[in-house]
Structure formats: C-alpha cells, structure tokens
C-alpha cells in the first residue's frame, strides 16, 4: 500500500485502500475521511473540468452527500418558514425532503425507462450532489434576502440553477440515445427549477 498518498489520494481506489484501517482509528478520523470523500465527489461533479473520464468516478456512488445537502436545504428553508409562509416549519421541511428524494427517484426512473443503462443509485447520487448550488443560493437568500429587492435576489438564483442544471444535464444526456435527449433532460430541469423556486420565495 502506498502510504505517501494518505493525506491527498489521487483517485478513489487509493482512498479505498485506506479503508482497511478503519477499525483501529478514532471516530473523528473516520468522519473526516467520509467528509473528504464527499468533498472530492462534489468537486468532481460540480466542476466540469474534472470530468475527463465521462462519469466513471460516479460508479462509486454514495448517498451520504445527497442526504447532507437535502437536510441542509430543508433546514435552511424551514428556518424562516414561520415568518414568511402560512405553513409550519415541519410542513415545509417535510415537503422539501419528500420532493428531493421522490423527485430524484422519478427522474432516475424516467431515464431508465427511456432506455438509459445506468445504475439507479448512481443517478440518484448525481442528482443529490447537484443540489449543492441550490443549497448555496438558499443560504445566501435566507440571510441577506430580506434586505435585497426582488431583482437582485434573482441573480444568485439564476446562476445557481444554471450551475446545477448544467452539471447534471451533461451526465443525463449521455445516458440516452440522441433522439430522446430532450425527454431525459427536461425532468432534471423541472426538478431543479422547483427547488430554486422554493429557495427564492422563502
């Protein structure tokens, strides 16, 4: 095993080699390693330059990242729920949580039914990671949104929505044959539009 790569693994297989030690290490180390893994995958998914191998890295899917981003988004949006909406905080949290997981499920099913040969969890993992920009815009608007006019609020919303959509569309479009591309891409677009709309109005 090559221990020189322990701090900065160059690829995921080197990270996997380190996993054999996890019974002997402290809890904080395990958690930090998982967080580093999530950060690594996040960089891979969201920064287009890193994708030279056409999404093969996503074969090592995990659902921790999507769960963290989903929970953060739901908590951010329900944080201000009492003052701006007529539903309670728990209603808002529940709606967003269900929307993200059911939405990812349905979008993946759609891609599979249209003939895309992708593993189910790989696609859910990708859609979950691409929720991260929506997270950023929700946090920005939650903290400074009340001081800004509507038009200024639109700018981060549009940028983050475009970023999410662009990151996931590249992967989704490559799954299905060319004459069905728009059919597979439109649901992804609708999914992120729905989430961006929530972060805008709350």
């Amino acid at each position, binding site marked *: 095993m090559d221990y020189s790569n322990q701090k900065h693994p160059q690829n995921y297989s080197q990270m996997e080699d380190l996993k054999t030690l996890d019974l002997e290490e402290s809890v904080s180390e395990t958690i930090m390693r998982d967080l580093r893994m999530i950060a690594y995958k996040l960089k891979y998914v969201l920064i287009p330059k890193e994708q030279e191998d056409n999404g093969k890295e996503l074969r090592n899917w995990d659902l921790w990242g999507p769960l963290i981003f989903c929970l953060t988004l739901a908590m951010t949006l329900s944080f201000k729920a009492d003052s701006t*909406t007529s*539903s309670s905080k728990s*209603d*808002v949290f529940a709606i967003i949580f269900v929307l993200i997981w059911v939405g990812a499920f349905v979008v993946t099913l759609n891609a599979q*039914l249209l003939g895309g040969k992708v593993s189910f969890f790989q696609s859910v993992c990708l859609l979950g990671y691409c929720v991260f920009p929506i997270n950023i815009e929700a946090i920005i608007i939650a903290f400074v949104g009340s001081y800004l006019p509507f038009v200024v609020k639109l700018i981060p919303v549009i940028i983050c929505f475009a970023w999410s959509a662009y990151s996931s569309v590249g992967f989704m479009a490559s799954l299905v044959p060319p*004459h069905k*591309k728009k059919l597979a891409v439109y649901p992804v677009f609708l999914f992120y539009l*729905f989430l961006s709309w929530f972060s805008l109005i*709350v």
Partner: protein
Amino acid sequence: MSSNGSALKGSATPDLAKQVLVQKLAQQIVNQIVSDDVIDDKIEEEENQNKEPTCCQMFCAPFTLKYYQPFFNDLTTKVIAQKLWASFFPFKATFFEIQDGKADLYGPIWVYATLVFAVAAAGNISGYLATPSNIAFHYNFDFIPTASSLLFGIAFLVPFAIYMVMKMLGGRHLHLTSVICIYAYAQTCIIPVCVVCSIPNPQLQWGALIYAMINSSLFLIVNYWGELEKNIQAKKHIVIWLIAGCQVVLLLLFKMYFFLYVYTNPYTGSRFDQLTKIVHTDHFFLHHHQQH
C-alpha cells in the same frame, strides 16, 4: 490429475511443485463451480419456460419496471412534441394518428408534474399580487401537496371512469393506458393558462379558465368522435357530458382553491396596482414634463 505426475518430475523444488498443484486444484474447483452454475441456470430457464405465470407474478407485475417499458419504447422528442402541439388545436382529430395511436406514459407523468409546479407557483403569485401592500403575504406551501393529490388522482380516476362508461356503452378498440395518455395531453393547455392567471384580475382568470375548459373538453370529444359515432351512437351524449362535466369541476376547483384571492376594487392599493401605477405615473410625468 494425470498431468500432475509429469509436472512433479520436471519441477526444480518441492515448493514450486506445490504451487503448481494448488493452482491446478483451484482451477479445477472454479471450473466445476462455473459449470455447475451454468447447468443450474439452464435447468431453471427451461423450467420457467414451461411454467405459467404464478398468481404472485401476475399481481406483482405492475410493480416492476419491465411492465411499463413498452410505453416508453420508440418514444422520441419529436413524437412528444407533436402530441403536445396537437393538444392546442382541438378541432383537428389527429392525436391517434401520431405514431399510430400508441400510448405513452411519459406525457402523463411530466404534464401533471409541470402542472403541479405551475398551479402552485401561479396561485401564490396571484395571491401575492392581490393583497394590499400593507398586509404581509404568507406563501402557502400547502398548494403543493394539494395540487399533487388532486392532479395525480384525476390522472387515473377520470380516465378510468371515461373508459368504463365507454366500454359499457359498447365502445371497442379502447385501452385504459390510451385513455390516460390522451386525458393527460388534454390538460396541457392549463399550463399556459396558469401563467396568465398569475395576474389577479378576476375577469381575466375566469376567461382563461373557461378557455382551458373548452379546449380540453373539445380535444377529448373530437378525438373520440369517430369511436363515439361508430360504436356508441345513440348514447354518445352521456360520454360528452361526462367529459365536459369533469373538466368544469376541475377548473372550478382550481379557481376556488388556488386563485381565490383577487382584488375587487382597483383602488384598494394591492401590490399589482402598485406595479401598474408606477407605469402610469411615469407616463404622466413624462407627458407633463414635455408640455413645458
């Protein structure tokens, strides 16, 4: 194992001989396992071909993905676009000529999903614009679960009712999925209507919703006219009233729940008024300025 004797004679050390022996044993074991598996699979396949589907398999079929695959085969963007376009022109009965009337389930799922978003957003926008500026507006998140239950509920129930009624009155060449499919495409005209209804003017909203009602009912009736004329003849008005009635109820529900709050008096100072007043004040100011 007869080849082992020759391997042992030619080997340099006992360790090397042991390694070779172990490798050959391992290979033999793996071959045995693989061939056993292959034989097992072949036997299972033959058995499955001879068996009829069990009761469990018949009931569980709708829960598998394979069951819905036929409705997504041969779908292209062009076909869906043609179907969507056809739904805006109810006087031409061309829907069943697109791809030989093959039903697809892509339309129902995504038309209703878009409608949920459109109705929830438009309902809230019209409520926001209709409230006076001094009253704080509370975004109503309950529109989303309500809209989803309503729309995905009617997506199955109303076509089922239409299908049963037509079948009982003697209709032939009907499939439940085909009725679900055409009913969903009939609802696509409500999406632009929702966008228009974001403006809280009551006359505009009623006008737009009545247009949606007429468009969707006509689309269904015109496309089923051939079927109605041929097989049902005398009692076709039952089906027509059923379709029109369902659409009227749906759109009344929309108006009464999602687009309930409108301003009645243009001078109450709603947010929509303020938006339009800004435009009027600017014009007045410019005109006044130009006179001097």
